[in-house]
């Protein structure tokens, strides 16, 4: 009795279409079988003569793998049926999949029940520390926009397999001017304007990466990457695993993420939680120019698909970047942006903007906040967060995204798992409100996390 679907356990032998003594060849329909879903035709898999029907038509509930007939090969005659029958049964039993074999074993009393399969421990993550900046290194003030551009340019100079593609990245110089000057330096072969076709060019970039190139795919914003998300997840993130490690995908998807200003619900959304849910992807979301540069260079060199979440509002913010020939930062390492002892505030990207301002206000109120910039959302640097909470005993998470299943929820869970005994108060989450982003200026402000909300949350976990 063949299994005709992944879930079939037994079937009814509805009808024999061949009788004993008939010649059959591969592909001939020999019987009809009723399953719980349909009546299926059974084809002969071997050539020969139908020697004996073992299960007559009309038999109900025949277990999968029960022999239903014997087909005699060339040179065999009916006398070999007896010999063939038990052999065939043995073969079927022997070759049954392990899961089923285990099930039948468990029923036998004198056989000890097999140990339930337990997944092994996941590998421990060990991110390197930031490189030391040599004393006397010149610090250059630049915008995040310039830092990102420099990172791409440096990597393109270093490796001819790196190229940039996306909407308006070349002639227009980037919808947000992040790719400014790249076309002039590297030419149209390596700085490629695409049609407005996110699903297509994301897939095309992944295909090029499967062939060994190192694309940097810009989405004009991550809102539009929703059109391409199947390719990012099903093709980019999973292929290495599905190929048993044979074929990977070195590619960076980058562009502005999160809330812009007064563009309403379809153009204002934080995808941090979405992408950091996916095994096989790395997710980075920097808040400073130096981190943007060092991490984008690392992302381009990383052998795995990386989602690099930028922020439109932060593009114009200036901060200091070390002037080094090759400034690369480790992926997967959080940074303590402000040291403190009373409460840990955890943010990334635009959330850091609110968090640092809140820390200043809290300092004025006598609360010494430690602010952690996650920088990388996947893999998440649990160690840095836990060490800080073990010190402060209190934590507040900050994100633009929605609360349910958000990164803050994940942080709260990890803090509970690893620092429960150190907590002096429940973890507080400051987040975007669970509404589509409104257009009206006053409502938009309310929908976002704010400095005041962080201050309030920090005070509440400090009971002050």
């Amino acid at each position, binding site marked *: 009795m063949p299994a005709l679907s992944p879930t079939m356990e037994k079937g009814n032998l509805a009808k024999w279409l061949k009788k004993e003594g008939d010649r059959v060849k591969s592909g001939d329909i020999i019987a009809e079988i009723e399953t719980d879903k349909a009546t299926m035709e059974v084809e002969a898999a071997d050539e020969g003569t139908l020697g004996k029907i073992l299960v007559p038509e009309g038999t109900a509930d025949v277990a999968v793998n029960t022999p239903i007939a014997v087909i005699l090969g060339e040179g065999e005659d009916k006398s070999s049926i007896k010999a063939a029958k038990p052999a065939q049964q043995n073969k079927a039993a022997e070759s049954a999949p392990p899961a089923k074999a285990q099930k039948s074993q468990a029923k036998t009393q004198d056989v000890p029940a097999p140990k339930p399969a337990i997944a092994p421990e996941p590998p421990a993550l060990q991110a390197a520390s930031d490189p030391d900046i040599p004393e006397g290194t010149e610090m250059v003030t630049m915008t995040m926009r310039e830092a990102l551009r420099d990172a791409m340019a440096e990597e393109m100079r270093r490796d001819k397999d790196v190229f940039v593609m996306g909407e308006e990245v070349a002639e227009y110089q980037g919808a947000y001017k992040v790719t400014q000057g790249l076309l002039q330096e590297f030419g149209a072969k390596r700085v490629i304007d695409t049609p407005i076709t996110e699903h297509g060019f994301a897939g*095309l970039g992944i295909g090029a990466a499967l062939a060994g190139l190192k694309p940097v795919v810009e989405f004009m914003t991550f809102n539009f990457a929703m059109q391409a998300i199947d390719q990012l997840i099903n093709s980019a993130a999973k292929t290495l695993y599905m*190929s048993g490690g044979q074929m990977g995908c070195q590619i960076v998807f980058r562009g502005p993420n999160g809330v812009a200003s007064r563009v309403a619900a379809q153009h204002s959304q934080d995808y941090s939680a979405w992408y950091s849910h996916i095994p096989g992807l790395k997710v980075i979301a920097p808040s400073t120019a130096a981190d943007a540069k060092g991490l984008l260079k690392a992302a381009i060199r990383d052998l795995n698909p990386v989602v690099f979440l930028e922020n439109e509002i932060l593009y114009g913010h200036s901060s200091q970047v070390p002037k080094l020939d090759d400034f690369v930062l480790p992926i997967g390492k959080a940074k303590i942006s402000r040291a403190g002892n009373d409460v840990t505030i955890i943010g990334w990207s635009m959330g850091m903007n609110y968090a640092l301002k809140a820390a200043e206000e809290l300092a004025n109120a006598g609360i010494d906040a430690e602010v952690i910039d996650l920088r990388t959302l996947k893999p998440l640097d649990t160690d840095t967060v836990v060490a800080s909470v073990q010190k402060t005993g209190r934590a507040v998470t900050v994100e633009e995204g929605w609360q349910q299943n958000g990164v803050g929820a994940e942080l709260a869970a990890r803090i509970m798992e690893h620092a429960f005994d150190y907590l002096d108060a429940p973890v507080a989450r400051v987040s975007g409100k669970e509404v589509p982003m409104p257009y009206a200026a006053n409502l938009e402000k309310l929908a976002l996390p704010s400095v005041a909300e962080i201050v309030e949350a920090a005070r509440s976990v400090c009971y002050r």
Partner: protein
Amino acid sequence: MAVAHKDPSADAKSVADFSKEQELSAYRTMLTIRRFEEKAGQMYGMGLIGGFCHLYIGQEAVVVGMQMALKAGDQVITGYRDHGHMIATGMDPKGVMAELTGRSHGYSKGKGGSMHMFSVEKGFYGGHGIVGAQVPLGTGLAFANRYRGNDNISVTYFGDGAANQGQVYESFNMAALWTLPAIYVIENNRYAMGTAITRSSAEVNLSRRGLSFNIPGDQVDGMDVRAVKAAGEKAAQWCRDGKGPYILEMLTYRYRGHSMSDPAKYRTREEVDEVRTHHDPIDMARHRIIEKKIANEDALKKIDGEVRDIINQAAEFATHDPEPDVAELYTDVYR
């Protein structure tokens, strides 16, 4: 309106002249695919293969003829009905079968299964489970060839069902815009799962689907391996000459259901029998071989026996190969 595999409007009427060796080699490979798939169906029935299992039986001439038109370095990518493509590109039936049974020496160490197998060495880029997703990926393979300035081409296979996916047309547009060396092979087996092409497609002549991108297309008798090879060579030359993409619609037919659990009630037994009896790619090749006295019945029987042995060995290997080590659970997520 039914689209027959011998549609009189078929553009590529010409068939390639096969040498004796080519006839025999095509016959052998098509037969290997057929026997492999029959064995896979049988092993599925025994519970050795799980999940989905989409058999290629009936369509063998398409992939075998196309492969004869390619050279080393060219890339092949397809959807989930992919076992035939793997065997045609020279992947080892043992490794393919062991992947179907989810064992450690499968091509993906048992982690991919029927729909997700790859061989960088053989230029086979999968094996993709999302309908139509392989089309931008295959276009990206062509992009990489163009970027590197080599003369390799990519062949992207998809079915009449996938031909209605939006990303196919996004890919056509970019491939034509950037003159990428991409052959799109539409394997029109007349049914997208259970939906006949006439019930799913406003334009059933799929070779015309590139018209608005200026991509030329031919309808090809996909049951005749010689016609497939001739069309494949024409398209490959077009791509290697730097003229951009080419569409080949292969009029073919699958004998089995969409997947193992498909009772195929959306078509008549007579329809299937008609194709099997009169247009079977392997039977036709066999008749030609006998008729042209390329080989006699005994010689063909010998080939049949050799193929059967290879497949039996593959099945044997795939049955006894151990499952992947539990430590493999966490490997290959990142590298």
